[in-house]
């Protein structure tokens, strides 16, 4: 489990928090909110990339800043908002870096590449791929690093992907969660968050406006307060709920 306990983060005159929230094993937690709400800052802090000015981030019960490089790599893998899409390495070499500090399992890298549909181009340079393909290569690198209990921290993982690969990436995250791992995802598309996530953290102006199961958090009133826009739950043709802008 990845937990924030009274976390405050200061960055460039902007402060978020205090935040108390958790990413539970076996569940996908979506972080949603308008631009500059603090989503990426929260993810960076939870990944141990930023030291909170107050409070503590705990990963499987231990302060994330007290973990060694190898221990953290075993327990947490991250796709940042702007991964190095111009990296000169081949896809195979990039994905292999996911196991840099971990035991090499023969098929782990190949499986991750295959799951992201990149087997045919695995010897091509990442910087020669389309942005969407390069993003998939970084997703594969995260999957190659992940063990069953690893928490995945993904900052807008599907932003540059086409519809098909965005859906498949969400499937891969769901499969990781089903295997017992936790997943924390920053996402802009509220409908996708409502459809794919189990829990949600709603951020507005650096504050946690709501947290809990996705159906409870993504309520039109709360969204109106944070986004200043109207949303409503509609029903799809198959009867499943669907969050859409209204008005």
């Amino acid at each position, binding site marked *: 489990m990845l937990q924030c306990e009274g976390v405050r983060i200061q960055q460039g005159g902007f402060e978020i928090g205090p935040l108390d929230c958790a990413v539970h094993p076996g569940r996908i937690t979506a972080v949603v909110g308008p631009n500059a709400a603090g989503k990426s800052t929260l993810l*960076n802090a939870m*990944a*141990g*990339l930023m030291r909170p000015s107050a409070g503590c981030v705990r990963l499987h019960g231990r302060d994330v800043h007290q973990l060694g*490089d*190898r221990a*953290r*790599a075993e327990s*947490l*893998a*991250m*796709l*940042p908002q*702007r*991964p*190095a899409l*111009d*990296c*000169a*390495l*081949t896809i195979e*070499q*990039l994905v292999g*870096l*996911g196991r*840099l*500090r*971990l035991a090499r399992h023969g098929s782990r890298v190949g499986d991750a590449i295959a799951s992201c549909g990149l087997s045919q*181009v695995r*010897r*091509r*340079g990442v*910087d*020669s*791929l389309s942005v969407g393909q390069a993003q998939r290569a*970084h997703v594969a*690198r995260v999957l190659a*690093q992940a063990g069953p209990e690893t928490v995945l*921290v993904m900052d807008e993982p599907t932003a540059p992907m086409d519809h098909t690969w965005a859906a498949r990436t969400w499937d891969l995250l769901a499969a990781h969660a089903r295997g017992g791992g936790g997943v924390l995802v920053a996402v802009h598309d509220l409908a996708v968050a409502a459809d794919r996530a189990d829990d949600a953290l709603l951020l507005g102006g650096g504050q946690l406006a709501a947290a809990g199961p996705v159906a409870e958090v993504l309520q039109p009133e709360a969204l109106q307060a944070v986004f200043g826009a109207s949303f409503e739950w509609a029903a799809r043709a198959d009867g499943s709920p669907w969050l859409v802008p209204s008005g």
Partner: protein
Amino acid sequence: MTPGRVPHGGPGVLVLLTAMMCGLGLLRMLVGRDPITDEIALSWPDAAYVGFRSTAMLVAAGVGGGLALSGMLLQAALRNPLASPSVLGVSSGAGLGVMVALYLAHQAGVSSLPWGVSAMLGACFAVGVVLALGGRGGWPDPVSTILAGVIVATMCGAGMVLLQGLVPDGLRGRFLAWAMGTIPESVPGGGLASLFVALAVVLVVAQCGHGRLDALLLDHASAVTIGAAPGPTRLACLAAAGTLTAITVALCGPLGFVGLVAPHVARRVIGPAHRLLVPASVVVGAGLVLGADVARQVVDFGTGRLPVGVLTTLAGGPIFLWMLRRGAASGWRTDAAV
């Protein structure tokens, strides 16, 4: 090369490069100037001169390898294809060190001067200042380090010009000859050993950490979360490159373009992954300086042997420009700086 294909020279290519370097080393043993007539001699040297030629060969190979390894480490650490030992201000710092020593010796009326020690002190001073100014959050920041290096190099250059005006013409001439680079045929005790010990240590450490060097090609967040510790790795790269370059400058003076071009040539034939790029850069750099030293024995404009630094720059510049053109034509990114 097919667009998008990363060059994949395997160990076979590395063996081929090594064989070429050894061939140039052998050629350097065969080619030289007659010490009496200064005529070009193409033969195995007399027993009396074997030591001179073998020393020159070893210095050329070690200095070339050291500069290339420094350049490769800097290009990885600073995520900048234009990074080279001169970026850290090492050469300029060494030059200022020598010039300060020359000035002080002139003032004190001392005729002999420890060139190597002066250059080493100046180079270490420059590296120290750049590392101190280029840090952010306790670790070197690529952009800040490059900017600090450029400023320090410029200031050291200005200091050199200032001091040159304060010493007699004869001393100024000696300084300018040193500043163009040379491959000495005899080296004070310990100089060659310190070069090869430093080269061996940095080579082994870099080879063992090739995965961490690869990780420096990633963004900071990814590099941290895969456990690559990019901050300490960067600091180690900069310190190692600064030390190696300082030793080479102390021995030979500044040699331009080797540290910039050799890693690019190696990358071009063997790919960007550091498992093979580390040794390949050393081999290419050694071959480049050996080739330049052979050429300076042969090329004669009636002015005596050309300074090797002039040859490495005259040869390295066009090679780099050619690679730039070829790279742009085959999808090799040239805008990936920083």
